Protein backbone atom coordinates (compact mmCIF):
# COMPACT_ATOMS: atom_id res chain seq x y z
CA UNK A 1 0.00 0.00 0.00
CA UNK A 2 2.70 2.44 0.95
CA UNK A 3 4.62 1.83 -2.23
CA UNK A 4 1.60 2.68 -4.29
CA UNK A 5 0.99 5.91 -2.38
CA UNK A 6 4.53 7.13 -2.91
CA UNK A 7 4.22 6.47 -6.61
CA UNK A 8 0.95 8.36 -6.71
CA UNK A 9 2.43 11.45 -5.08
CA UNK A 10 5.47 11.24 -7.37
CA UNK A 11 3.47 10.85 -10.56
CA UNK A 12 1.80 14.19 -9.85
CA UNK A 13 5.12 15.85 -8.93
CA UNK A 14 6.53 14.88 -12.29
CA UNK A 15 3.92 16.62 -14.34
CA UNK A 16 3.03 19.46 -12.05
CA UNK A 17 3.16 22.50 -14.33
CA UNK A 18 1.69 21.01 -17.45
CA UNK A 19 -0.83 19.20 -15.28
CA UNK A 20 -2.03 22.46 -13.77
CA UNK A 21 -2.47 23.96 -17.20
CA UNK A 22 -4.46 20.94 -18.37
CA UNK A 23 -6.60 20.86 -15.26
CA UNK A 24 -7.45 24.51 -15.82
CA UNK A 25 -8.44 24.13 -19.46
CA UNK A 26 -9.68 20.57 -19.88
CA UNK A 27 -11.29 19.59 -16.63
CA UNK A 28 -14.42 21.67 -17.00
CA UNK A 29 -17.00 18.92 -17.27
CA UNK A 30 -16.16 17.27 -13.98
CA UNK A 31 -15.58 20.62 -12.32
CA UNK A 32 -18.95 22.03 -13.40
CA UNK A 33 -20.77 18.82 -12.44
CA UNK A 34 -19.13 18.91 -9.01
CA UNK A 35 -19.88 22.57 -8.37
CA UNK A 36 -23.51 21.95 -9.33
CA UNK A 37 -23.67 19.23 -6.69
CA UNK A 38 -22.67 21.77 -4.05
CA UNK A 39 -25.89 23.78 -4.17
CA UNK A 40 -25.75 25.17 -0.69
CA UNK A 41 -24.42 28.23 1.01
CA UNK A 42 -20.67 28.11 1.69
CA UNK A 43 -20.54 31.49 3.42
CA UNK A 44 -18.54 31.43 6.68
CA UNK A 45 -18.30 27.63 6.44
CA UNK A 46 -15.03 25.88 7.25
CA UNK A 47 -14.18 23.78 4.21
CA UNK A 48 -11.45 21.20 3.64
CA UNK A 49 -10.42 20.15 0.14
CA UNK A 50 -8.94 16.64 0.30
CA UNK A 51 -6.22 16.42 -2.29
CA UNK A 52 -6.59 20.06 -3.22
CA UNK A 53 -3.79 19.80 -5.79
CA UNK A 54 -2.71 23.23 -6.99
CA UNK A 55 -5.71 24.81 -5.28
CA UNK A 56 -7.84 25.79 -8.26
CA UNK A 57 -11.05 24.55 -6.69
CA UNK A 58 -10.23 26.30 -3.42
CA UNK A 59 -10.37 29.61 -5.28
CA UNK A 60 -13.99 28.87 -6.23
CA UNK A 61 -14.95 27.87 -2.69
CA UNK A 62 -13.26 30.96 -1.34
CA UNK A 63 -15.17 33.11 -3.80
CA UNK A 64 -18.36 31.56 -2.44
CA UNK A 65 -17.38 32.69 1.05
CA UNK A 66 -15.93 29.56 2.64
CA UNK A 67 -12.98 29.58 5.04
CA UNK A 68 -10.73 27.24 3.09
CA UNK A 69 -8.23 24.55 3.99
CA UNK A 70 -6.40 22.20 1.65
CA UNK A 71 -4.29 19.09 1.95
CA UNK A 72 -2.38 17.15 -0.71
CA UNK A 73 0.35 14.52 -0.81
CA UNK A 74 2.31 16.34 -3.52
CA UNK A 75 4.73 18.96 -2.18
CA UNK A 76 5.04 20.66 -5.55
CA UNK A 77 1.29 21.06 -5.99
CA UNK A 78 0.91 22.40 -2.45
CA UNK A 79 3.70 24.89 -3.17
CA UNK A 80 1.75 26.10 -6.22
CA UNK A 81 -1.46 26.23 -4.19
CA UNK A 82 0.15 28.38 -1.49
CA UNK A 83 1.85 30.70 -3.98
CA UNK A 84 -1.31 31.31 -5.97
CA UNK A 85 -3.60 31.70 -2.99
CA UNK A 86 -1.93 32.87 0.24
CA UNK A 87 -5.23 33.20 2.13
CA UNK A 88 -6.02 29.49 2.23
CA UNK A 89 -4.24 27.12 4.60
CA UNK A 90 -2.65 24.33 2.60
CA UNK A 91 -0.48 21.52 3.95
CA UNK A 92 1.24 18.41 2.67
CA UNK A 93 -0.33 15.32 4.19
CA UNK A 94 -2.12 12.01 3.95
CA UNK A 95 -5.91 11.69 3.56
CA UNK A 96 -5.89 8.81 6.00
CA UNK A 97 -4.14 10.71 8.79
CA UNK A 98 -5.54 14.20 8.68
CA UNK A 99 -3.66 16.78 10.76
CA UNK A 100 -6.87 18.34 12.10
CA UNK A 101 -8.83 18.06 15.33
CA UNK A 102 -12.15 16.24 15.64
CA UNK A 103 -15.15 18.11 14.26
CA UNK A 104 -13.11 20.90 12.68
CA UNK A 105 -15.05 21.32 9.42
CA UNK A 106 -18.55 22.05 8.14
CA UNK A 107 -17.71 20.68 4.71
CA UNK A 108 -15.18 18.22 3.28
CA UNK A 109 -14.87 18.06 -0.51
CA UNK A 110 -12.65 15.96 -2.73
CA UNK A 111 -12.27 15.60 -6.47
CA UNK A 112 -10.48 12.67 -8.15
CA UNK A 113 -8.64 11.65 -4.99
CA UNK A 114 -10.65 9.30 -2.75
CA UNK A 115 -10.07 6.45 -5.20
CA UNK A 116 -6.27 6.80 -5.18
CA UNK A 117 -5.98 4.89 -1.89
CA UNK A 118 -6.44 1.15 -1.73
CA UNK A 119 -8.62 1.00 1.37
CA UNK A 120 -11.15 3.81 1.10
CA UNK A 121 -12.68 3.10 4.51
CA UNK A 122 -9.56 4.62 6.07
CA UNK A 123 -10.43 7.92 4.40
CA UNK A 124 -14.12 7.70 5.33
CA UNK A 125 -13.31 7.23 9.00
CA UNK A 126 -10.93 10.19 8.99
CA UNK A 127 -13.36 12.45 7.13
CA UNK A 128 -16.10 11.55 9.60
CA UNK A 129 -13.75 12.35 12.48
CA UNK A 130 -12.87 15.87 11.26
CA UNK A 131 -16.45 16.73 10.17
CA UNK A 132 -18.97 18.32 12.48
CA UNK A 133 -22.21 16.45 13.06
CA UNK A 134 -24.52 17.08 10.08
CA UNK A 135 -21.55 18.33 8.06
CA UNK A 136 -21.37 17.72 4.31
CA UNK A 137 -19.02 15.25 2.65
CA UNK A 138 -19.02 15.57 -1.15
CA UNK A 139 -16.63 13.73 -3.41
CA UNK A 140 -16.07 13.04 -7.09
CA UNK A 141 -13.95 10.11 -8.15
CA UNK A 142 -13.25 7.73 -11.01
CA UNK A 143 -16.25 5.49 -11.70
CA UNK A 144 -15.78 1.77 -10.83
CA UNK A 145 -16.97 0.83 -14.30
CA UNK A 146 -14.20 2.86 -15.91
CA UNK A 147 -11.65 1.22 -13.61
CA UNK A 148 -13.00 -2.14 -14.75
CA UNK A 149 -13.30 -1.37 -18.46
CA UNK A 150 -9.77 0.00 -18.75
CA UNK A 151 -7.99 -2.96 -17.20
CA UNK A 152 -5.58 -4.30 -19.78
CA UNK A 153 -5.78 -7.97 -18.81
CA UNK A 154 -7.46 -10.36 -21.24
CA UNK A 155 -9.91 -11.36 -18.54
CA UNK A 156 -10.86 -8.54 -16.22
CA UNK A 157 -12.17 -9.05 -12.70
CA UNK A 158 -14.37 -6.34 -11.21
CA UNK A 159 -14.00 -7.72 -7.70
CA UNK A 160 -10.20 -7.96 -7.62
CA UNK A 161 -8.19 -4.83 -6.91
CA UNK A 162 -5.64 -3.98 -9.60
CA UNK A 163 -3.68 -0.90 -10.52
CA UNK A 164 -5.21 0.57 -13.67
CA UNK A 165 -3.59 3.05 -16.08
CA UNK A 166 -6.02 5.74 -17.12
CA UNK A 167 -5.57 8.22 -19.93
CA UNK A 168 -6.69 11.63 -18.80
CA UNK A 169 -7.05 14.99 -20.51
CA UNK A 170 -7.51 13.55 -23.97
CA UNK A 171 -4.54 11.23 -23.54
CA UNK A 172 -2.05 13.92 -22.49
CA UNK A 173 -1.33 12.11 -19.24
CA UNK A 174 -1.55 8.63 -17.86
CA UNK A 175 -2.33 8.19 -14.20
CA UNK A 176 -2.41 4.97 -12.22
CA UNK A 177 -5.20 4.19 -9.77
CA UNK A 178 -6.23 1.07 -7.85
CA UNK A 179 -9.58 -0.30 -9.05
CA UNK A 180 -12.59 -0.13 -6.74
CA UNK A 181 -16.13 -1.49 -6.66
CA UNK A 182 -19.29 0.33 -5.59
CA UNK A 183 -19.31 -2.06 -2.62
CA UNK A 184 -16.26 -0.16 -1.38
CA UNK A 185 -17.71 3.31 -1.85
CA UNK A 186 -21.07 2.35 -0.26
CA UNK A 187 -19.29 0.31 2.41
CA UNK A 188 -20.87 -0.49 5.78
CA UNK A 189 -18.33 1.88 7.31
CA UNK A 190 -19.40 4.69 4.97
CA UNK A 191 -23.13 4.10 5.53
CA UNK A 192 -22.55 3.89 9.29
CA UNK A 193 -21.13 7.42 9.26
CA UNK A 194 -23.03 9.15 6.45
CA UNK A 195 -26.54 9.75 5.14
CA UNK A 196 -26.39 9.89 1.35
CA UNK A 197 -28.29 12.78 -0.21
CA UNK A 198 -27.12 12.73 -3.83
CA UNK A 199 -25.55 10.30 -6.28
CA UNK A 200 -24.83 10.86 -9.96
CA UNK A 201 -22.84 9.20 -12.75
CA UNK A 202 -21.14 11.15 -15.51
CA UNK A 203 -19.53 10.69 -18.86
CA UNK A 204 -16.73 12.98 -19.96
CA UNK A 205 -16.46 13.18 -23.78
CA UNK A 206 -12.87 14.43 -23.46
CA UNK A 207 -11.77 11.11 -22.05
CA UNK A 208 -13.39 9.29 -24.95
CA UNK A 209 -11.18 10.57 -27.74
CA UNK A 210 -10.05 7.03 -28.37
CA UNK A 211 -11.28 5.11 -31.39
CA UNK A 212 -13.91 2.52 -30.61
CA UNK A 213 -14.32 3.43 -26.99
CA UNK A 214 -17.74 2.51 -25.72
CA UNK A 215 -19.65 5.01 -23.69
CA UNK A 216 -19.57 4.29 -19.98
CA UNK A 217 -19.36 6.59 -16.95
CA UNK A 218 -15.97 8.17 -16.21
CA UNK A 219 -16.71 9.56 -12.79
CA UNK A 220 -19.41 9.71 -10.15
CA UNK A 221 -20.37 12.18 -7.44
CA UNK A 222 -21.57 11.26 -3.96
CA UNK A 223 -22.85 13.81 -1.45
CA UNK A 224 -23.76 12.93 2.14
CA UNK A 225 -24.27 14.36 5.60
CA UNK A 226 -22.40 13.10 8.63
CA UNK A 227 -24.84 11.28 10.91
Amino acid at each position, binding site marked *: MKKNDINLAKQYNNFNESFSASVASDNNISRQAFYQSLQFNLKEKTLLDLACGDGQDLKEYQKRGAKCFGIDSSEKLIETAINSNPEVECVVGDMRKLPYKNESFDIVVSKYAIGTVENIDEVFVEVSRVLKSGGVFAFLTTHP*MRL*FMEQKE*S*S*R*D*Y*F*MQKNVSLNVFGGKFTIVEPSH*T*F*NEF*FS*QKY*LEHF*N*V*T*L*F*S*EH*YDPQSANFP*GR*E*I*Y*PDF*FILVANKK
Partner: protein
Amino acid sequence: MKTNLSKQYNGFANTFSETHDNGNKFTNRIFFDQLRSSGLQDKKILDLGCGDGTDMQYYKYRFSNNVLGVDASEKLLEEARSKSLDVRLGYFDSLPFSDQTFGVVISKYALQTVDEFNNTYQEVARVLKKSGSFVFLVVHPFRQFFEKKSNQKNYFDKKIVNSVLFDGKVVVEEPTHTVQEYLSPEFFKYFSLESFIEKSDFYSAEKIGPDEYPTYLIVSAKKL
Protein backbone atom coordinates in the same frame (compact mmCIF):
# COMPACT_ATOMS: atom_id res chain seq x y z
CA MET B 1 -43.87 -2.07 -22.20
CA LYS B 2 -45.84 -3.06 -19.11
CA THR B 3 -48.14 -5.20 -21.22
CA ASN B 4 -45.31 -6.94 -23.03
CA LEU B 5 -43.52 -7.73 -19.82
CA SER B 6 -46.51 -9.25 -18.12
CA LYS B 7 -47.29 -11.21 -21.29
CA GLN B 8 -43.80 -12.65 -21.59
CA TYR B 9 -44.03 -14.04 -18.06
CA ASN B 10 -47.49 -15.44 -18.84
CA GLY B 11 -45.94 -17.24 -21.80
CA PHE B 12 -43.40 -19.17 -19.81
CA ALA B 13 -45.04 -19.25 -16.40
CA ASN B 14 -44.64 -23.01 -16.12
CA THR B 15 -40.96 -23.28 -17.10
CA PHE B 16 -40.16 -20.24 -15.05
CA SER B 17 -41.60 -21.67 -11.85
CA GLU B 18 -39.63 -24.87 -12.24
CA THR B 19 -36.27 -23.30 -12.99
CA HIS B 20 -36.05 -20.08 -11.05
CA ASP B 21 -36.10 -21.57 -7.57
CA ASN B 22 -33.21 -23.89 -8.32
CA GLY B 23 -31.35 -21.45 -10.57
CA ASN B 24 -31.29 -18.70 -7.98
CA LYS B 25 -29.97 -20.71 -5.09
CA PHE B 26 -26.64 -18.84 -4.74
CA THR B 27 -28.24 -15.45 -5.12
CA ASN B 28 -31.05 -16.46 -2.75
CA ARG B 29 -28.60 -17.34 -0.03
CA ILE B 30 -27.04 -13.87 -0.14
CA PHE B 31 -30.39 -12.10 -0.45
CA PHE B 32 -32.06 -14.03 2.37
CA ASP B 33 -29.01 -13.39 4.59
CA GLN B 34 -29.47 -9.70 3.91
CA LEU B 35 -33.18 -9.95 4.76
CA ARG B 36 -32.44 -11.79 7.98
CA SER B 37 -30.27 -8.87 9.13
CA SER B 38 -32.99 -6.31 8.25
CA GLY B 39 -35.28 -7.01 11.22
CA LEU B 40 -38.33 -8.40 9.39
CA GLN B 41 -39.59 -10.66 12.13
CA ASP B 42 -43.39 -10.57 12.49
CA LYS B 43 -43.73 -7.50 10.27
CA LYS B 44 -46.37 -7.20 7.57
CA ILE B 45 -44.46 -7.95 4.36
CA LEU B 46 -45.19 -7.09 0.73
CA ASP B 47 -43.42 -9.02 -2.03
CA LEU B 48 -43.25 -6.64 -4.98
CA GLY B 49 -43.20 -8.78 -8.15
CA CYS B 50 -44.04 -11.93 -6.21
CA GLY B 51 -44.41 -14.09 -9.34
CA ASP B 52 -45.52 -17.62 -8.50
CA GLY B 53 -45.04 -16.99 -4.78
CA THR B 54 -42.03 -19.22 -4.18
CA ASP B 55 -40.23 -16.54 -2.16
CA MET B 56 -43.42 -15.64 -0.29
CA GLN B 57 -43.56 -19.18 1.03
CA TYR B 58 -40.05 -18.75 2.37
CA TYR B 59 -40.87 -15.36 3.92
CA LYS B 60 -43.93 -16.91 5.62
CA TYR B 61 -41.89 -19.78 6.92
CA ARG B 62 -38.96 -17.64 8.03
CA PHE B 63 -40.24 -14.19 9.00
CA SER B 64 -43.96 -13.59 9.35
CA ASN B 65 -47.45 -15.01 8.82
CA ASN B 66 -48.46 -11.74 7.30
CA VAL B 67 -47.11 -11.81 3.72
CA LEU B 68 -48.84 -10.32 0.67
CA GLY B 69 -47.76 -10.30 -2.95
CA VAL B 70 -48.36 -8.21 -6.03
CA ASP B 71 -47.46 -9.04 -9.63
CA ALA B 72 -48.40 -8.02 -13.16
CA SER B 73 -48.68 -11.56 -14.54
CA GLU B 74 -52.07 -13.27 -14.07
CA LYS B 75 -50.64 -16.69 -14.91
CA LEU B 76 -47.94 -16.49 -12.25
CA LEU B 77 -50.51 -15.22 -9.75
CA GLU B 78 -52.68 -18.28 -10.48
CA GLU B 79 -49.77 -20.45 -9.40
CA ALA B 80 -49.30 -18.36 -6.28
CA ARG B 81 -53.00 -18.70 -5.43
CA SER B 82 -52.73 -22.46 -5.80
CA LYS B 83 -50.25 -22.28 -2.90
CA SER B 84 -52.90 -20.47 -0.81
CA LEU B 85 -51.01 -17.18 -0.92
CA ASP B 86 -52.61 -13.74 -0.63
CA VAL B 87 -51.69 -12.05 -3.92
CA ARG B 88 -53.10 -9.23 -6.05
CA LEU B 89 -52.77 -8.22 -9.67
CA GLY B 90 -51.16 -4.81 -9.93
CA TYR B 91 -48.40 -2.61 -11.25
CA PHE B 92 -45.60 -1.17 -9.16
CA ASP B 93 -46.56 2.43 -9.88
CA SER B 94 -50.13 2.00 -8.60
CA LEU B 95 -50.15 -0.49 -5.75
CA PRO B 96 -53.56 -1.83 -4.69
CA PHE B 97 -52.97 -1.15 -0.98
CA SER B 98 -53.78 1.72 1.36
CA ASP B 99 -51.20 4.05 2.93
CA GLN B 100 -48.78 2.74 5.59
CA THR B 101 -49.90 -0.87 5.28
CA PHE B 102 -46.54 -2.65 5.45
CA GLY B 103 -43.54 -2.84 7.74
CA VAL B 104 -41.41 -4.26 4.94
CA VAL B 105 -41.42 -4.22 1.14
CA ILE B 106 -39.22 -6.85 -0.52
CA SER B 107 -38.57 -7.18 -4.23
CA LYS B 108 -36.34 -9.71 -5.97
CA TYR B 109 -35.41 -9.49 -9.67
CA ALA B 110 -38.51 -7.43 -10.45
CA LEU B 111 -37.85 -3.71 -10.19
CA GLN B 112 -35.65 -3.63 -13.31
CA THR B 113 -38.62 -4.66 -15.46
CA VAL B 114 -40.12 -1.17 -15.27
CA ASP B 115 -38.88 1.80 -17.29
CA GLU B 116 -38.37 4.21 -14.45
CA PHE B 117 -38.50 3.93 -10.68
CA ASN B 118 -39.67 7.28 -9.41
CA ASN B 119 -43.37 6.36 -9.38
CA THR B 120 -42.55 3.01 -7.83
CA TYR B 121 -40.45 4.62 -5.10
CA GLN B 122 -43.29 7.00 -4.35
CA GLU B 123 -45.76 4.10 -4.17
CA VAL B 124 -43.50 1.94 -2.00
CA ALA B 125 -42.98 4.87 0.38
CA ARG B 126 -46.76 5.40 0.48
CA VAL B 127 -47.63 1.82 1.46
CA LEU B 128 -44.71 1.54 3.94
CA LYS B 129 -45.08 2.51 7.56
CA LYS B 130 -42.67 5.11 8.95
CA SER B 131 -39.14 3.66 9.31
CA GLY B 132 -40.30 0.63 7.33
CA SER B 133 -37.73 -1.34 5.34
CA PHE B 134 -37.41 -1.56 1.58
CA VAL B 135 -35.03 -4.25 0.35
CA PHE B 136 -34.65 -4.98 -3.34
CA LEU B 137 -32.47 -7.11 -5.56
CA VAL B 138 -32.14 -6.14 -9.22
CA VAL B 139 -30.07 -6.99 -12.27
CA HIS B 140 -26.84 -5.00 -12.02
CA PRO B 141 -26.62 -2.12 -14.51
CA PHE B 142 -23.10 -3.27 -15.52
CA ARG B 143 -24.51 -6.66 -16.53
CA GLN B 144 -27.17 -4.92 -18.61
CA PHE B 145 -24.41 -2.91 -20.29
CA PHE B 146 -22.77 -6.15 -21.44
CA GLU B 147 -26.14 -7.52 -22.49
CA LYS B 148 -26.44 -4.67 -24.98
CA LYS B 149 -24.09 -6.76 -27.12
CA SER B 150 -23.59 -4.10 -29.79
CA ASN B 151 -20.14 -2.83 -30.77
CA GLN B 152 -20.76 0.71 -29.65
CA LYS B 153 -22.46 0.24 -26.31
CA ASN B 154 -23.67 3.28 -24.41
CA TYR B 155 -24.28 2.83 -20.67
CA PHE B 156 -26.61 5.83 -20.60
CA ASP B 157 -28.85 4.74 -23.51
CA LYS B 158 -32.00 2.95 -22.48
CA LYS B 159 -32.36 -0.24 -24.51
CA ILE B 160 -34.44 -3.36 -24.25
CA VAL B 161 -32.03 -6.26 -23.76
CA ASN B 162 -32.46 -10.01 -23.67
CA SER B 163 -31.45 -11.37 -20.30
CA VAL B 164 -30.50 -15.03 -20.55
CA LEU B 165 -31.26 -16.79 -17.27
CA PHE B 166 -30.64 -20.19 -15.71
CA ASP B 167 -28.25 -21.65 -18.25
CA GLY B 168 -30.38 -20.48 -21.15
CA LYS B 169 -33.61 -22.04 -19.91
CA VAL B 170 -35.33 -18.66 -19.78
CA VAL B 171 -34.85 -15.44 -21.77
CA VAL B 172 -36.55 -12.25 -20.61
CA GLU B 173 -36.66 -8.80 -22.14
CA GLU B 174 -35.80 -5.97 -19.80
CA PRO B 175 -35.08 -2.26 -20.12
CA THR B 176 -31.52 -1.30 -19.15
CA HIS B 177 -30.86 0.99 -16.20
CA THR B 178 -27.99 2.94 -14.65
CA VAL B 179 -26.93 2.92 -11.00
CA GLN B 180 -28.03 6.54 -10.73
CA GLU B 181 -31.58 5.56 -11.72
CA TYR B 182 -31.76 3.26 -8.70
CA LEU B 183 -30.14 5.82 -6.39
CA SER B 184 -32.09 8.75 -7.80
CA PRO B 185 -32.96 12.01 -6.06
CA GLU B 186 -36.49 10.55 -5.70
CA PHE B 187 -35.03 7.55 -3.87
CA PHE B 188 -33.17 9.80 -1.41
CA LYS B 189 -36.32 11.88 -0.96
CA TYR B 190 -38.14 8.89 0.55
CA PHE B 191 -35.42 6.57 1.86
CA SER B 192 -32.14 6.46 3.69
CA LEU B 193 -29.63 4.04 2.20
CA GLU B 194 -28.72 1.32 4.69
CA SER B 195 -26.68 -1.07 2.59
CA PHE B 196 -25.54 -1.62 -1.00
CA ILE B 197 -24.20 -4.99 -2.12
CA GLU B 198 -23.10 -6.05 -5.59
CA LYS B 199 -22.19 -9.63 -6.48
CA SER B 200 -21.90 -11.95 -9.42
CA ASP B 201 -23.78 -15.20 -9.95
CA PHE B 202 -23.12 -16.65 -13.38
CA TYR B 203 -25.28 -19.65 -12.75
CA SER B 204 -28.43 -17.57 -12.87
CA ALA B 205 -27.08 -15.06 -15.41
CA GLU B 206 -25.42 -15.61 -18.78
CA LYS B 207 -21.70 -14.81 -18.67
CA ILE B 208 -20.70 -12.59 -21.58
CA GLY B 209 -17.00 -12.72 -22.43
CA PRO B 210 -14.15 -13.82 -20.15
CA ASP B 211 -14.65 -11.11 -17.53
CA GLU B 212 -15.91 -11.23 -13.96
CA TYR B 213 -18.47 -8.48 -13.50
CA PRO B 214 -21.33 -7.94 -11.03
CA THR B 215 -24.64 -9.49 -12.09
CA TYR B 216 -26.94 -8.29 -9.34
CA LEU B 217 -27.32 -5.53 -6.81
CA ILE B 218 -29.05 -5.52 -3.41
CA VAL B 219 -30.21 -2.22 -1.92
CA SER B 220 -31.53 -1.94 1.65
CA ALA B 221 -33.25 1.25 2.70
CA LYS B 222 -35.40 2.70 5.44
CA LYS B 223 -38.35 4.98 4.87
CA LEU B 224 -37.51 8.47 6.12
